[in-house]
């Protein structure tokens, strides 16, 4: 088929390029198509639709990621749990039994910071 007619020069040039660079490949025969259909259908069991499979089977990274997260969470409790103690409470409990600190806190009139500071200096 010729190129030309009422086409603009740019269109003629592009039509030549198109025919040279984008020829339509020959269509497969009916026999080739049937052979292809058989090959695809034979492989369907290995490609079951995603919806039919559980989430963890489609996204295989999920199970190890979940395990790692749980392990990290548990480890954070074990390793850091001891440090979550209130330091003030620890001081009180450590010195329980007549220490100046306990006496200071237990005093009914030790309600202001000035009292605490003055008595603290006196003790030292």
């Amino acid at each position, binding site marked *: 088929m010729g190129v030309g007619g009422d086409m603009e020069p740019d269109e003629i*040039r*592009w039509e*030549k*390029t*198109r*025919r*040279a*660079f*984008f*020829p*339509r*490949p020959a*269509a*497969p025969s009916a026999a080739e*198509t*049937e052979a*292809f*259909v058989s*090959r*695809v*259908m034979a*492989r*369907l069991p*290995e*490609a*079951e*639709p*995603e*919806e039919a499979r559980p989430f963890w089977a489609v996204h295989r990274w999920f199970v190890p990621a979940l395990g790692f997260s749980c392990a990290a969470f548990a480890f954070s409790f074990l390793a850091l749990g001891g440090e979550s103690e209130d330091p003030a409470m620890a001081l009180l409990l450590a010195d329980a039994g007549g220490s100046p600190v306990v006496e200071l806190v237990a005093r009914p009139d030790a309600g202001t910071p000035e009292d605490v500071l003055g008595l603290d200096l006196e003790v030292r």
Partner: protein
Amino acid sequence: MTDPELVAHVLSGRREDYAELVRRHHAAVLTLCRSLLADDALADDAAQEAFLKAYRSLAGFQGGAAFGTWLYRIASNHCLDLRRRRARRPTESLDALREDDPARVERLLREPDAAGAAAEAKDLVERVLSRIPEDYRAILTLREVQGLSYQELMEVLGCTLDSVKARLRRAREALERELRHFSERENV
């Protein structure tokens, strides 16, 4: 029976109905893969993979788009992935092409039908096309080989009409720019 009806049958468990969908769209998908990959054996494998991927994600098929264009999108993405993997190999330099092929390119443009049949010309076409970006090659193939309309290109490429037109224009310009290199070399 229409494509959406066949899809509904397959999703309801009648897997054998997928054969009819494959039968209907085999030629178009294979043609697309051959044009994008320029290798018949590779194209056949790619077409199979495209149909299997489509089957795997059939539940995600939206009836708004035609099954064919949805399938084109899967096939063209798969072929582009394959080409990107192959592109890691060193490409031929433009200078080497200029040195070797100006006369062959001119001959190809003068007699595209005769030249297109020759294996040598096919190789040359592939070498020139490999010099333009992959997405340009894809849109040109979908438009010029598959004959897709702008509307279908929008569905396959997932972009707007303006974007389709702009990409098509830039793709043509890129290919013609590559060809001008050869012509200029010939006229020196």
